């Protein structure tokens, strides 16, 4: 899975399946964690964030899970669609508004 520091470059899933993108973060003091989607030639688009005092947060078709014990973050996309094909970044926010991004996971949805 993706890490802020390491990365799993690609993930391929069949249309309709669920996708799980993983991220390992580094700073136990980070107070927010955010997932972004970036399509080719565009700026990143906010997907969902989670505060450090939460374990799970759900959005529309997406769920973010946070495991502070092992410093792990995941993004689950339900019923993946072709429009979900993009690069996904996780980011952690340090106290004081500093953000650190992972290198990204490229998700390809196979029709």
């Amino acid at each position, binding site marked *: 899975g993706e890490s*802020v520091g390491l990365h799993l470059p690609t993930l391929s899933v069949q249309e309709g399946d669920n996708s799980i993108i993983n991220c390992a973060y580094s700073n136990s003091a980070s107070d*927010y964690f*955010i997932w972004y989607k970036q399509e080719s030639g*565009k*700026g*990143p*688009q*906010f997907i969902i*964030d*989670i*505060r450090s005092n*939460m374990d799970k*947060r759900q959005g529309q078709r997406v769920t973010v899970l946070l495991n502070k014990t092992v410093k792990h973050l995941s993004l689950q996309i339900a019923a993946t669609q072709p429009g979900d094909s993009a690069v996904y*970044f996780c*980011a952690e*926010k340090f106290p004081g*508004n*500093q*953000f*650190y*991004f*992972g*290198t*990204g996971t490229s998700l390809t949805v196979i029709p």
Partner: protein
Amino acid sequence: NAGVTQTPKFRVLKTGQSMTLLCAQDMNHEYMYWYRQDPGMGLRLIHYSVGEGTTAKGEVPDGYNVSRLKKQNFLLGLESAAPSQTSVYFCASTLRWGAGNEQFFGPGTRLTVL
């Protein structure tokens, strides 16, 4: 609302030249950020601002300066461009930080320094 806009979209500079990238947002956001994105890498924070008249350094501030004279604008300056500054630059803004608040990104400026 136009959201976050960036000017210019593309630019080619020679080493040593200077330029200013403009970011504008019409959402009355307090926080604004400048990032760079290099091939195969995530975004790295250059500078940010938590309000009009304030700026702070991010992860990679060297070689860049910023100004936030008006709440809606955040300028990124390169005084003496170097080939290492070839990158795609993204501006972002957010109303404030808290659960459920989104960080909006502009479309990017592709800068090449020869």
